[in-house]
């Protein structure tokens, strides 16, 4: 596998999330890179050419490694698809338990200030 185009990368990432639902982790790393070796970069700098930077995205599940690069032009489209992907798969995180918190607070009030205050619910 290794270096892919952004769309196949997203597909592979989807399957990676699917495979690791019950066990395992998914690591995604984002870094800026010009994708050129140091010598090439030095050459370009001395020649006066602007070094073009891209965003390197790597993903792994501990066993398989995939990566892709995204330039300035396509990064918004990639970011939108990536966000959708994450939203779809990160379902295991806890939702905000506001109702429970409220109940807990009301319960405490009843217990603590029962003698001075009348409980709202009879």
């Amino acid at each position, binding site marked *: 596998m290794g270096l892919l185009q952004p769309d196949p990368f997203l597909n592979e990432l989807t399957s990676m999330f699917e495979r690791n639902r019950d066990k395992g982790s998914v690591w995604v790393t984002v*870094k*800026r890179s010009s994708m050129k070796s140091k010598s090439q970069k030095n050459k370009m700098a001395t020649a006066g050419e602007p070094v073009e930077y891209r965003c390197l995205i790597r993903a792994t599940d501990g066993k398989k490694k995939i990566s892709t690069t995204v330039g300035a032009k396509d990064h*918004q489209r990639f970011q939108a698809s990536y966000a959708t992907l994450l939203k779809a798969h990160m379902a295991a995180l806890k939702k905000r338990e506001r109702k429970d918190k409220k109940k807990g607070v009301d319960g405490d009030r009843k217990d603590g200030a029962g003698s001075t205050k009348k409980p709202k619910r009879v």
Partner: protein
Amino acid sequence: MVYVTSWDEFVGRSVQLYKADPQSTRYCMKYRHCDGKLVLKVTDNKEMQRFSFIISSDVQLLFKSVISLLLAFCLGLLIWEECLKFKTDQAQDAKKMEKLNNIFFALMARGPDVTVPLTFAVDLSEVTGKEQMEAQPAKKGRGRKQHSDILQTAGREAEVLFSFGLLQKFCGVGKHDPMMLLSLPPSIRLHKK
């Protein structure tokens, strides 16, 4: 490893870290579905020799360790490694993370000079987010899509969003076609009559 507890602090510091060294800073994410845990890490990989207290009966070793400690201390002042981590199990943080993803994508793909909205006070107006971004052509230009594209890619989301927030309240919808959007209010009034 430093776990930062406040999200805003984590964002501020990680962007600062990136701007200090865009070449070596990376943003990592680890997600475990089985545990429902999400960990974010931003680091610049700079070396910092760790302090280690070596208990040794060998005088030479002790001497060497003292020297290395001093060296590490001096180097520590010059080369400061930073690793910021943030862990969570809350779904609301996943949404915040998406915004941070956007920030980093913009910074990394376009360059560290891009101005991005850092404070989440501003970003709260982005909660209705993409709709506003897409519908902003309606406010700025009738059909001037090029202009709107420039605005979209620029970092001036705050002022556009505030002005647009008013427009959205007025129109009540965020649609793609700017002309449609402009024509909606009069037709609604007609229907009401």
